[in-house]
């Protein structure tokens, strides 16, 4: 049996962990606040975010969302406009040359307790840079507010460990929430590509070319605006000598379903940045495997645990014990109910 302590021990070991939510209102912020509390007085914390995730009010539903509350001494890396919205007394330590749509990223130290809004860079390389700077300035444990979003360019895989937050708000249908969670965990766990040459090609070229085709004797680099909607481009570049298709972007059902129809699918392997780039419905991955096509990633994700929130702000809730037990029986990870632990 896993306990909450297992997750905390793992965080202490890994030092840089991102928390990603499967949807809105799944309790990501509550999880973050819980973790911050656990480490208070034990370690200097650093906080940042991948992109801007969640506003104070959920625009669609109008429900007031919880905010992140830090204690004095915490280091915060956030975009300027977000920093100005926080209410803790702050000391400015560094402004980073990289800019986000929300302004420069600023690193501040909290001189009092207070609420923070996190908004960070949305590119993996820059998230790494921010984390390194936080570490350099004295952060011992760093939490990254990570989005599981089609829009995000960054991969939470840049952090050493990932916590997945899931909750009742995903669907009113209990079984649907369970199967969606299992599916997400399965996608996040996509295995790392073993061929280091392929990984190196990905690292060298994917910044400029979103699609890279590797054939038995040559390579084809293609620039597209977005991977979504480029299935035609991919199909046109397949033949019986195709071995790898390297994709820098998000892969959806549509793309996979059209690849399945290609007679060349069985010759190729798809390589992505990490498992957060796969947005596939349950069962789609199996269909791809059935035609003999595999998927691997440049950087595998180290999933260290799952949190659940049995309440939905829409007013319904699941039986928390049934929810927890059902997931525990299907997934071999530490799973905990965030609403229980905060009490």
């Amino acid at each position, binding site marked *: 049996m896993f306990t909450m302590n297992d997750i905390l021990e793992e965080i202490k070991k890994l030092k840089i962990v991102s928390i990603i939510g499967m949807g809105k209102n799944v309790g990501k912020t509550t999880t973050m606040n819980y973790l911050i509390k656990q480490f208070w007085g034990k370690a200097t914390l650093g906080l940042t975010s991948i992109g801007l995730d969640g506003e104070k009010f959920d625009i669609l539903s109008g429900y007031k969302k919880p905010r992140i509350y830090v204690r004095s001494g915490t280091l915060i890396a956030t975009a300027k406009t977000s920093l100005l919205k926080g209410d803790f007394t702050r000391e400015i330590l560094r402004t980073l040359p990289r800019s986000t749509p929300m302004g420069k990223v600023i690193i501040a*130290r909290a001189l009092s307790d*207070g609420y923070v809004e996190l908004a960070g860079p949305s590119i993996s390389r820059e998230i790494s840079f921010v984390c390194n700077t936080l570490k350099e300035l004295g952060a011992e444990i760093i939490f990254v507010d990570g989005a599981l979003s089609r829009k995000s360019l960054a991969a939470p895989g840049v952090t050493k460990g990932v916590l997945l937050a899931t909750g009742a708000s995903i669907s009113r249908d209990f079984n649907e929430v369970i199967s969606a969670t299992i599916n997400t965990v399965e996608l996040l766990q996509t295995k790392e590509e073993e061929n280091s040459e392929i990984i190196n090609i990905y690292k060298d070229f994917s910044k400029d070319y979103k699609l890279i085709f590797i054939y038995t004797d040559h390579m084809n680099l293609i620039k597209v605006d977005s991977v979504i909607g480029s299935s035609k481009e991919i199909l046109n570049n397949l033949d019986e000598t195709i071995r790898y298709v390297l994709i820098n972007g998000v892969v959806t059902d549509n793309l996979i379903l059209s690849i399945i129809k290609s007679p060349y699918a069985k010759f190729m392997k798809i390589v992505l940045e990490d498992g957060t780039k796969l947005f596939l419905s349950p069962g789609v991955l199996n269909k791809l495997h059935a035609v003999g096509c595999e998927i691997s990633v440049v950087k595998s994700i180290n999933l260290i645990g799952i949190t659940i929130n049995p309440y939905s702000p829409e007013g319904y809730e699941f039986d928390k014990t049934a929810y927890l037990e059902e997931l525990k029986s299907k997934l071999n990870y530490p799973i905990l109910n965030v609403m229980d632990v905060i009490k």
Partner: protein
Amino acid sequence: MSFLDEYTKKMIGLDTVFDSLKLLSPYGRTLKKSIIPYKDEAKLKAELDSIETILCLIKSKAQVFFEIEKALGKVCDIKSSINRCLAGDTLDDIELYEIKCFSILSEHIKGNYIKLNAMLKELYSKDISDVVRLLDADGKGFETFHIYDEYSVKLEEIRRTKINIEKELYGTKDIDLIATLKAKRLKLVHAEQKEELKVEQELSKKLIARSSDISNNMDFIGRIDLLIAKARLAEDENLSKPEISEILQMKNGINPVAKAFLEEKGLKFTPITMELSKGVTLITGANMGGKTISLGIVALNTYLAQMGFYVYAESFLFPFMDFVYYVSEDMPSFSDGLSTFGGEVLKVKEIIKETKKFKGLILIDEFARGTNPEEGSNLIKALIKYLNNTSSISLLTTHFDKVILCNIRHYQVRGLKDANLKDLEEKLSDKNYSAIEAIQSKMDYTLDEVTGITEVPKDALNICRMLGLDAQIINYAEEYYKK
């Protein structure tokens, strides 16, 4: 008045030279974008002298330069904050932090600059240590900033009360108490923010009075950054100081891009030596003989010198120019509707207008190449005759025969004249070389000054033969040559 257009700058390798000019500060980078040829001779001379002074010190005071360059790399752009401040806006703590860091670094650079004892002309850093003190209320001198308690007794009080409430808040699980404490805290947060704003307003007001010295130091940092970058470039690329003179004299000038390109292929680049004075100088010579490259080297070095850079030559004398014009058939501006020839004519017309009022350098590559040779040579002759009587320096290339007038300076590309043809044939049959590369390897790009009326060397036929043009055609051509 005009200097080189963007296309020509790229063609002669100026873009590549600019890419190697590494500026470290945002002020230096802004300055780099606005580099243009000097319009004032004394200022140009001062700039070149400053680079020389830095080059003299760069090794003996390496540690000082290391400190300056490290600070240049850290300095951030506070221009918009200073402008906001001058406009009466209140700066936020992040802007104040940046101004504090700037001031600390600026003082650091100044301290090291003084150690150089360099006395560079018109380059002074103002003392802004009082700005550092203003923004370093706790006196620790750290490169961090916050609205320090020292700025306001009231602020200190609010914060103390607030922290006590936060402690209480953290220690309790009583929901009612939490709500009360949260409400109390929120009130204090607002009071704190109000008081912080007051401090920010006061600081911003005080900074207005210091903005002119701060701006001066932004300019100073940009200038010293650019001068060091120019000196580093001169050192890395082994450049020499150009000297202002009556004539244009280049000893062993090179084009770094062409040189790197040839050397990568294992070929040798021949440096170009030539002297040009008021009037016309003509380069004639074989096709593929590097006439255009020679023109480009003169253009590149003159332009660099005029912008206050060291140059790609062993030595370089040049007159202060009002303009530098370069006309070549490949210019893209000639492809918008006009025929190449039409384009050239219009460009030359523009240049002639300038020569009536100003003096400069005119480089014309194979004028009228695209028109029939009979008319072409007549036109070139006329152009030469005209330009020879202006106060500008003109350098023209041509492979037309019979355009050489007796009173102009004339250089000829040595070409294949002295090449060992047997060697060349061997190289041509070597599968490792393309025919073009083989010819390039045997082509002597040296320019020889020739006197009197000599014929343009006839390398065209040789080149046709070497490139394997049908023997029948070569035979026919030889017969025509005899006629």
